[in-house]
């Protein structure tokens, strides 16, 4: 007689992990359920969000950017203004408090762009926990600044050398660490995938994004938005902003995946374009895989979206038609990156620029009467080097190129 399957979103989700981890997952599930209704836990998390994260995050209407979105009204949910620079802190503070509650003293995390690693290192410093962050070697190179940030915060950063040396391999290594050290260690998984209860728990910690944004848009516009756009790597910021809108049938929920060099090129992370249902990292969901079930490496200019699998609840939302998913190419994302920077003075994370590019498409499709809410999930400080390289703003030595024309500093021809 076996236990019934748990943590399903329709047919997706579940718990595909070694038996050794099941007791830890059951403990985690039990603790987070208790914590959710414990006024002390809820109060402490709210206090930290108010006095440390900087919640509620504001919304900003961006009319000059919106001129490039078919004239639709575009409103940004400013998760980029959170402490540590992205939405990731919402989840991490919740899980770090749970870690203390479970009597564990050490946290581990995977990171792609470095945002989740930085957030975890921050929470560990705040709460006095030992912290080890696993990061693919390739990502440590393209996000070197975040590696230094994590080390400054007292975390150990381990560069993962095998496989594709990106996010998926960092997750593999974090699981290996967790199996060996599960008695003292909590794995602060950074997105809405993995074995149950992670997809549900991480979503619940991010749900505050949509709860705030829905009311803020109502207050500003007097009605709900027509569309909510969010980028989808694992999909945590998207689930966070989508969830409060699930019952608002008139609100379209649009997730933007990394289209990389284009779907036809094969170099992308658009799981819903060419992926197939399968299991990766503990969850049954959409996975980029070959005909033998081997994971296919993903590609994106954005380290945070460069992941071959996606949260199982997104797979469910897509299957039921409640949410739709589109690929955004590297070129489209970088155009939106430059555009928001120059029209509004906001440097978005390259991940979030995919959501902005989605808003540009949808605005042009829907026209000037539309109201589009975009989750600006992170800020672009960490991406300055990548963007500067992309737009050719550096000379060969990597220093700022002095000869850039002041009329067109991005060199892209993007008009203001």
């Amino acid at each position, binding site marked *: 007689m076996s236990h019934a399957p748990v943590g399903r979103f329709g047919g997706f989700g579940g718990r595909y992990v*070694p038996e050794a981890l099941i007791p*830890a997952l059951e403990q985690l599930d039990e603790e987070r359920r208790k914590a959710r209704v414990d006024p002390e836990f809820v109060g402490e998390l709210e206090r930290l969000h108010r006095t440390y994260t900087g919640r509620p995050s504001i919304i900003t209407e961006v009319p000059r950017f919106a001129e490039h979105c078919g004239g639709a009204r575009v409103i940004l949910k400013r998760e980029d203004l959170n402490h540590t620079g992205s939405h990731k802190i919402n989840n991490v503070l919740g899980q770090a408090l749970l870690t203390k509650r479970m009597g564990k003293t050490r946290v581990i995390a995977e990171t792609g762009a470095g945002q989740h690693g930085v957030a975890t290192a921050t929470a560990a410093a705040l709460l006095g926990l030992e912290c080890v962050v696993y990061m693919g070697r390739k990502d440590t190179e393209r996000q070197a600044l975040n590696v230094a940030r994590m080390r400054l915060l007292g975390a150990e950063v381990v560069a993962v050398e095998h496989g594709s040396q990106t996010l998926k391999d960092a997750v593999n290594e974090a699981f290996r660490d967790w199996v060996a050290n599960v008695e003292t260690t909590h794995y602060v998984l950074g997105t809405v995938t993995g074995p149950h209860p992670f997809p549900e728990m991480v979503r619940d910690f991010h749900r505050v994004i949509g709860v705030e944004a829905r009311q803020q848009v109502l207050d500003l516009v007097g009605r709900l938005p027509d569309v909510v756009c969010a980028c989808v790597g694992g999909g945590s910021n998207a689930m966070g902003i989508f969830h409060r809108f699930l019952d608002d049938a008139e609100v379209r929920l649009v997730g933007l995946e990394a289209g990389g060099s284009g779907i036809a090129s094969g170099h992308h992370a658009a799981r819903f374009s060419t992926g197939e249902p399968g299991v*990766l990292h503990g969850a049954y969901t959409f996975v980029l895989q070959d005909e033998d079930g081997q994971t296919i490496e993903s590609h994106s200019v954005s380290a945070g979206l460069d992941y071959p699998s996606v949260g199982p609840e997104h797979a469910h939302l897509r299957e039921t038609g409640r949410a739709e998913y589109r690929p955004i190419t590297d070129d489209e994302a970088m155009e939106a990156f430059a555009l928001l920077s120059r029209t509004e003075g906001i440097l978005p994370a390259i991940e979030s620029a995919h959501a902005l590019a989605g808003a540009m498409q949808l605005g042009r499709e829907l026209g000037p009467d539309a109201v589009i809410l975009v989750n600006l999930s992170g800020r672009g400080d960490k991406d300055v080097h990548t963007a500067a390289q992309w737009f050719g703003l550096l000379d060969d030595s990597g220093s700022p190129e002095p000869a850039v024309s002041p009329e067109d500093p991005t060199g892209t021809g993007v008009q203001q």
Partner: protein
Amino acid sequence: MLQRCRDEGRAALVGYLPVGFPTVDGSIEAMRALVESGVDIIEIGVPYSDPVMDGPVIQDAAVRALEAGVRVDDAFTAARAVVDSGAAALVMTYWNPVLRHGVERFAADLADAGGSGLITPDLIPDEAGEWIEAADRHGLDKVFLVAPSSTPDRLAAVTSACRGFVYATAVMGVTGARAQVGHAAQDLVARTRSVTDLPVCVGLGVSTGAQAAEVGRFADGVIVGSALVRCLTEAPSPGEGLARLRKLAAELADGVREARA
């Protein structure tokens, strides 16, 4: 096979090798060498791109096997060869390759090849409904894992879903050779025996004949993986790898035979 070993008053020796390393033919030759050296059951590993339960040695072999073009179907070819050489063949695989192949089709192909069953390191019985049905239809063994962290409740649930034997992962952590055999192994075997009559085989990083003997005193089977794989991955040539493999397998086979002598 486990019954025969039991009749001989000794633990079975279970040897793991991934199919496809260094080549498909080379791996099958290595599996035959294990059988000739006294290994009773061959665990045929299916190389997988994301082996979260494996340490560096098996990861390395899997990566190289995949680069050399190994396919899932090669595991069935290997199973046939192992069975023809007189040992029992079990396939050990992460779950996604089975899902992608089709659970029913995988079970049918494995049964056709003469394989005994499947060891599933990242599939717990709770998620295994489709596999359990297919295994029952084709008369295949269902080997699930228990761990030192397993609660009495979990031990009972997992072992009741097993057929063939129970795989006790006796240390917390990934695969890899370890210097010492801990008390945790004996304790886990005892706890497992208290809830099932099935044979209990132990995998915990055994790499020497002495360790095999020590585990063989309290377990029904001694599982050796990384130490065997390393014979092949670290050898300067395939021939030298086979020679090292035969030598170690013979030492381990002596170990399980001396355990209760």
